[in-house]
């Protein structure tokens, strides 16, 4: 099947399809090579990377919930140096657009990471300011507009790559956050990160997760994500990468109609490792049935007040 209808351009990146994979759910892409044509994806947002290696949280890190799951991995990763030296050269032959998700405990750390990753083979940087599972600062950057802006400025000052800021849903006003990071120079926003949640084991009378709380993801969060994409689309002009509970092409269509220029698939990769390919096929069918020639024609169409650059 030709992907002509799905071909798009975002942040200067020519994408075969507007379907990406969300950070933390798809490793470095290579783990899914038996099931996915990685070059057909719009991009792979690789596992959150930090300056120093992190071992992540102790104890139970994942639990299934109704129509979703909670996780508290805690940003386990080998550190940016190992990523650059070992992982990036290893995944280069797959021909995918590698978007590196980065986390730091200070604006300077984001700047340093952005600079180190300003290398060939990296398509863009995604700033993770909203990991709910680490205690050292992440959550502050994600909930305070000025702190998030300082992270964007630090990254932008240190790289020529496009910079995407990943917005947290765990805020009172996501629109205020989106406007602030757009003003600070973010080239795009991605949303939503996981919703802070918790489960208690009624036999042991203890929290299930080792970190007590965790990030909720999966189909159950989709209505929240669609609502937030809709709200942000009315307030910013930078492109939006929509994510949160997408499990099918129908779900993805909702995000485009709400104002997303691209979507990312996360938790559904665990249920079905081929899901991104099924979503691409389903989007193709949907566009064909609707008589549309390109996915861009869908963006923001549910929203008369959509501001985005693709209209």
């Amino acid at each position, binding site marked *: 099947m030709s992907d002509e209808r799905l071909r798009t351009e975002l942040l200067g990146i020519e994408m075969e399809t507007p379907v990406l994979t969300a950070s*933390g*759910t*798809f*490793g*470095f892409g*290579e*783990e*899914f*090579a*038996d*099931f996915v044509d990685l070059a057909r994806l719009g991009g792979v947002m690789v*596992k959150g990377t930090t300056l120093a290696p992190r*071992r*992540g949280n102790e104890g*139970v*890190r*994942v*639990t*299934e*919930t*109704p*129509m*979703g*799951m909670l*996780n508290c*991995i805690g940003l*386990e990763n080998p550190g940016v140096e190992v990523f650059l030296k070992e992982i990036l050269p290893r995944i280069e*032959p797959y021909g995918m657009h590698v978007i590196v998700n980065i986390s730091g405990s200070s604006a300077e750390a984001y700047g340093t990471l952005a600079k180190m990753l300003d290398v060939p083979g990296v398509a863009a940087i995604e700033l993770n300011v909203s990991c709910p599972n680490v205690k050292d600062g992440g959550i502050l950057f994600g909930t305070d507009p000025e702190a998030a802006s300082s992270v964007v400025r630090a990254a932008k000052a240190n790289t020529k790559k496009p910079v995407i800021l990943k917005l947290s849903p765990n805020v009172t006003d996501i629109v205020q956050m989106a406007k602030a990071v757009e003003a600070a120079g973010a080239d795009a926003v991605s949303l939503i990160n996981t919703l802070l949640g918790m489960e208690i084991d009624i036999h042991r009378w203890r929290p299930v997760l080792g970190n007590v709380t965790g990030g909720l993801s*999966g*189909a159950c969060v989709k209505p929240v994500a669609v609502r937030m994409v809709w709200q942000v689309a009315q307030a910013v002009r930078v492109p939006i990468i929509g994510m949160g509970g997408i499990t099918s092409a129908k779900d993805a269509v909702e995000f485009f109609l709400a104002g997303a220029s691209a979507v990312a698939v996360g*938790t559904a*990769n*665990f*249920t*079905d*490792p*081929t899901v991104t390919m099924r979503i691409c096929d389903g989007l193709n069918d949907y566009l064909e049935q609707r008589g549309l020639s390109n996915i861009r024609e869908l963006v923001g169409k549910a929203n008369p007040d959509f501001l985005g650059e693709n209209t």
Partner: protein
Amino acid sequence: MTLPKKYEVTANVVQQQKLIETVYFLMVYAPAIAQAAEPGQFVQLRILRGAFTLRRPLGVAAIDRENGNIAFIYRVVGEGTRALAALQKDDSVNVLGPLGNGFSHDFVHPLVVGGGIGLSPLLYYAASLKGRADVLMGGRTEDELFWNTLFHGFVRNIFITTDDGSLGVRGFATDLLPTLLARYDYDGIVVCGPEVMMRGVAKLAQEHGTPCEVSLEARMACGLGACLSCSVDTRGGRRKVCKDGPVFSAAEVFS
């Protein structure tokens, strides 16, 4: 990129049989996976009825390559396994696998030690050795040791311990192990069961100077090494149970 290929297939149920209350034997038709699966590897089953976000990891208990079938033995512990147990012949289930690394091929006359559902991957391993292995199984009471019948014919000797002495020797598997190590000349020990059993066996194996492999269990989401739900500490740093394991050298993970 040189890793062996994994498959994701929707498979028909060939047989579903209750072995004892809460423990089931499930056989599905999945020829590609049956052809490829090595002893100690596992699959991730996606239960298509209901709305499960996560797959359920199950060790391979038996393979019938000729007919393209693969079998699992599992305990019903929650909603997922309850839904799995409700499947009947000709229902379908989605199978992702084979996953992880299996047991080493190095042992000629190993002792396999297991408890509970941990005996399930050991059954395939022991069967693959065509009577060269011995098995030591530990259970609470004789009710759990239906495994005895399953292993019969695949192993040289079957040794049994029960907590209450209702079958075999009274005590834990680790109580009988030193006697067996002294009496027989095993070139390796392979263990899968509760962590306390695996640690105990690993310690005795080390004291006796016998190489020991353990098959770890962990909560996991992707099964492919991507989500890092199942990370463990090893001598060589952080490793993933799903991708780098589930079989590890005991010295690597219990030190």
